[in-house]
């Protein structure tokens, strides 16, 4: 459960990070309406993941936190890729 929560925290944090990048915004065809909110989440969620992981003994907590960063990042990257492919289709058809 701890790993799952940490994974979700990292995934949403990196999703926010992705949405803040101009390249990804262009790929998705979106602007950045909630910049401050995304920046806040990007900062807070990894710390929340760390706080959750710290319920495990060291060094398991640290390994879990770093491992979930990797997996969460891949999941966020995968979701943004799927979204960018979908956003690309209507533009290509038009």
């Amino acid at each position, binding site marked *: 459960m701890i*790993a799952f929560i940490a994974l979700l925290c990292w995934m949403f944090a*990196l*999703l926010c*990070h*992705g949405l803040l*990048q101009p*390249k*990804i915004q262009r*790929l998705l065809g979106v602007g950045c309406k909630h910049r401050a909110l995304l920046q806040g989440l990007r900062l807070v969620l990894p710390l929340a993941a760390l706080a959750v992981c710290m319920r495990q003994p060291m*060094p*398991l907590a640290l*390994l*879990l936190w*770093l*491992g979930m*960063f*990797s*997996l969460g*990042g*891949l999941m*966020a*990257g*995968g979701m*943004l*890729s799927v979204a*960018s*492919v979908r956003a*690309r289709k209507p533009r290509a058809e038009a």
Partner: protein
Amino acid sequence: MRDILRNRMGWLHTWVGFVSGLVLVVVFTGGTLAMFDTEITRWMQPELAMLPQAPLTAEGLNHAGEQVQALREKEQTVFLALPSVRDPVLRILHYDGHAFVGPALDPRDGTDLNVRQTQGGQLFFDLHQSLYRGPVWGNMVTEVVGIGLLVAVLSGLIIHFRNLVPDLVLFRPFAAPGRAWLDAHLMAGVLMLPFIVMITYTGVVIHGPRLFPMISNGHGGKAGRPGHDRAHDAAPFAPLAPMWKQAEAVFGEGNIGFIRFEPRAVSFYRSDAADFVMTRDRVDFSPRDGQQIGVKRDERGDQSLGGIIRGLHYVRWGTLGLRWLYFICGAIGSAMMSAGLVLFVIKYRRTHGGTVRLALAEALTLAVTLGLPLASLGFLWSNRLIDPSLAHRELLEAKVFFLLWLCALLHGVLRSCTGLVRTAWREQAWGIAALGCGLPLLDVVSRRATAFTPGLDVYLAVDACAFGIGILALWGQSMIVHDR
């Protein structure tokens, strides 16, 4: 100035990355599979599926001790591995040059379970550690390519320094093939950076003393490996059960990993799973009367640091979830390196297309990227198809593995030289799909006569992984067709 540095680092990353990468994909894939070496060995000994989970008894241990004694009288050097959560049987093991092999015994009464002999998951461990080439040359090569990986990581960081953070989760599958592969390589590389740096650094440090014997602290050589001591004195020793109880009183219940028999002592070693710091702490007993001689603990300081590094790398103390995390990170690391190899051949295809050198590079890339999983699945198939009672069958299984891998390389060379490298990728992907998707069926059929009982166990896990790899290969080959 900055561009000159980036160009130099680009050259370094390309060539060190490619040459080391060919070996590193093998090392990483082997290490990834070795994370579950014990479980793979259990899958490859289906006779164990019938055995109920039972604790070790004094009778079982004493009976096992008698069998060890009989082997020592024949001047065989063996040690006794005690049951654990991961491997619930007693094993009398000896080192055959590549793996620890030997009979498995029932923990309840010490009777031989007559399991088929196999190197099992330890083949992957040996492949990871020394490329199956022994502790001198094999270790040296893995050590050198490990350092090569650290160089490649550092140069890669310098090249992409400006875009590392902004492009952290950027992947454009619809971009040109080179760009898409680069995105995949970068994204996986940067996200896996903590794991890759940690696992490579600890791996290099663990085997550093082999490359630099002048800094050896006694952990790098073979001297500490159980099973290597000669059985000089085969005088009978006292029953093991009372010693075991005393050893458990020192290290805690269930924390004894293995028992080593030496002329002047019977040593009970603490299990690697007992603590994060991996040590060779032991309790010694007199073999004649079973009296405790003493408790030897690794000293603090550099040995403790070595124990931390080994604990981080081998993660034998870890929970099942943590081992899965290492497994997934290792698999993604292998894929990232394979993507780097593919990028290399794509880059040089433009300028060196049609040359023998490029064909060889393409064939080698194919052999480590798809040939290795193909051979690994073939190894699992051979385990169920070779007669369980055949003498030295474990060596035959290993031969099947290397023969299949060689065939994959030759297939790649032939196809690359005739300009059909994409066909070669598709054909090998089809091979993986057939072997992977067929493995669960083979498992069910080959275990039907003995002990097929569906459940959440190592058999289901191995079958599911093989099936998943098969499906992934099917998808991959369809992507190659689509990309055409």
